[in-house]
């Protein structure tokens, strides 16, 4: 057994096992932690397939942001996940049947699917085996697709402004820290040096 094959089965097995644990774990925090484990193993699979950009993206975006967000939701909101999921596993047989049917359909499709030999070369950006995919994306992101990239950035800016406009409320009775004021303070404004004679109070 070659080393990549060994790692493929390792990652795949842990991935499937942790995905199962996500839906069957009793403790919601454990479920989220298993989800993170699943993401890590999926990114390992991507790495084996030579898609290192997707692998890193999966970790940065899904583990770094989404999973942490889930964890926050689970911990902050008082949602009774246990009762929500009561009897969840009793539907498992139906789920297995649906899954098997889907798998059979996919196998049927894969068996009859023919990829045209010209398909890869006819693409707008043919795959160049010499450049790794992170470099390939970097080469076109700010050149060929700069308009679309900046347009997408503007969409995100609108989303950010929109979220702030619609939800941010300034509370007037909250004391806020003002670093500029703090740094600008002089000893003369705040300290008073007093000579106290011994034996006497102020």
């Amino acid at each position, binding site marked *: 057994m070659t080393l990549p094959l060994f790692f493929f089965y390792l990652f795949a097995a842990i991935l499937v096992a942790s995905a199962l644990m996500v839906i069957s774990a009793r403790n919601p925090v454990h479920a989220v932690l298993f989800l993170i484990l699943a993401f890590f193993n999926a990114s390992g699979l991507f790495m084996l397939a030579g898609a290192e950009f997707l692998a890193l993206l999966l970790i940065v975006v899904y583990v770094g942001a989404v999973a942490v967000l889930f964890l926050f939701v689970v911990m902050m909101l008082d949602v009774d996940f246990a009762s929500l999921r009561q009897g969840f596993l009793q539907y498992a047989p139906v789920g297995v049947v649906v899954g098997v049917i889907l798998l059979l359909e996919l196998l049927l499709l894969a068996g009859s699917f023919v990829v045209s030999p010209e398909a890869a070369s*006819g693409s707008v950006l043919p795959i160049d085996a010499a450049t790794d995919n992170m470099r390939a994306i970097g080469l076109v992101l700010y050149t060929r697709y700069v308009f679309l990239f900046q347009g997408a950035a*503007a969409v995100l800016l609108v989303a950010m402004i*929109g979220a702030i406009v619609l939800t941010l409320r300034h509370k007037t009775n909250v004391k806020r820290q003002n670093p500029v004021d703090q740094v600008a303070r002089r000893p003369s404004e705040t300290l008073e040096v007093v000579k106290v004679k011994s034996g006497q109070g102020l």
Partner: protein
Amino acid sequence: MNSDVTDFASLAPAYPEMLLAVGAIVLLLVGVVINKERSLLVSYGAVLLLLVVGSLVLFAPAEGVLFNGVFISDSFARYMKVLVLGGSAFSLMLALPRAEEYGTHKFEYAILVLLATLGMMAMVSANDLMSLYVGLELQSLSLYVLAAIKRDDSRATEAGLKYFVLGALSSGMLLYGASMVYGFTGHTNLQEIVIAIADEGRSIGLIFGMVFLLSGVAFKISAVPFHMWTPDVYEGAPTPVTAFFATAPKVAAMALLVRLVMDTFQGITSDWQQVVIFLSIASMVLAAFAAIGQKSIKRLIAYSSIGHVGFALVGLSSGTQVGVEGVAIYMAIYVAMTVGLFACLLSLRTENGAVETIDELAGAAQKRPFVAAVMAIIMFSLIGMPPLAGFFAKWHAFLAAIDAQLYVLAVIGVLASAVSAFYYLRVVKVMYFDEPVRDFEAVPAELNIIIGVSGFLVVTYYFTVGGPLANFAHTAAGSLF
């Protein structure tokens, strides 16, 4: 790697967009830094920016295809961009008086209008299914937020949420259509799609994609049967925001539709013609009858705008250069009339606040004769009475349909126009012949200017702007053929 942007000068066709984007970000920073009481400063800055960008589009023409074919600047795009920028600038001005009441006093309002306008310009200049979608989303997302900008008002938030959910649905349809078109032609670039259609002919998958794509766009121009959101959103959103919704976004989406059907799908004209004719007839007829029962004046305007989209589509259905010219002229006149109408509406206020229902307009002619007169003129123009501007708009559209031998469509259009006269004239009747119940407040100077300009243009259209506008529209339409 193979980019066609080699130096700054080669970006010339996209200068207006770049200026608008940079200006919007600068104004955003200004808005964050200056204190809250002077946030109208940002609005004034935004109006100025829109006017500068508009004059750049108008007087410094640079045409060409840019960014590896995703962006096109031609006469048609320039014409529509001028309309979009003008519509945005005027609706921003409408939001200046009594901004506190409408929730438009926040500086983010102007920034969102600017970014929405940027999205509209990208839509107008889209030459690729991807840039089309990015532009459309940039515009739509800003509009969803704008609808709910008065966040403590339950009707405004309802309007925003409704618009968001239905807008997301329409984006889904549009994307589905785009993926079908891409799948069956193998290209996302609109010019490449034209070539692919010419080579391979029509296929059922392509027609499917085209129908979904047009449905998505029809939602944005609120053509029947994709109009359901319009009356609710127009009624719920603050009035200056409604004025914005009714002008610039409609023009941009209409420009997108014209480019898609006249350029991209020119190989399957007989197929898209059926869709456009259906949208046109359904919009004209439904709007004419549905508006009759309306009590709220904003709902009335919503149905009126649905009807006008139908009339503009009459011109487009012909599929000829004259038809595109008709649509271009129609949209220009529609924007001028709508801006004027909203300026009148915003300026008529009783001590109970802004006028909401048609009955509240009673006796406006005695108390505010100028505003009532202009509003009546605009109503007559919306019906299509000669010699007002609205008549020429409809004339161009119907002429194109008759040239293309779509007699039934033209007849239905004229009949729908006659039916719509009823509800327009009802407003005039209430203003002129009903006894005044309440007194009206004084009109702010800014609104008076806009009302005056709009009224002047509508009345003297044939003698003043009509000729140059028709010339400009002629060149614009010519660039698509």
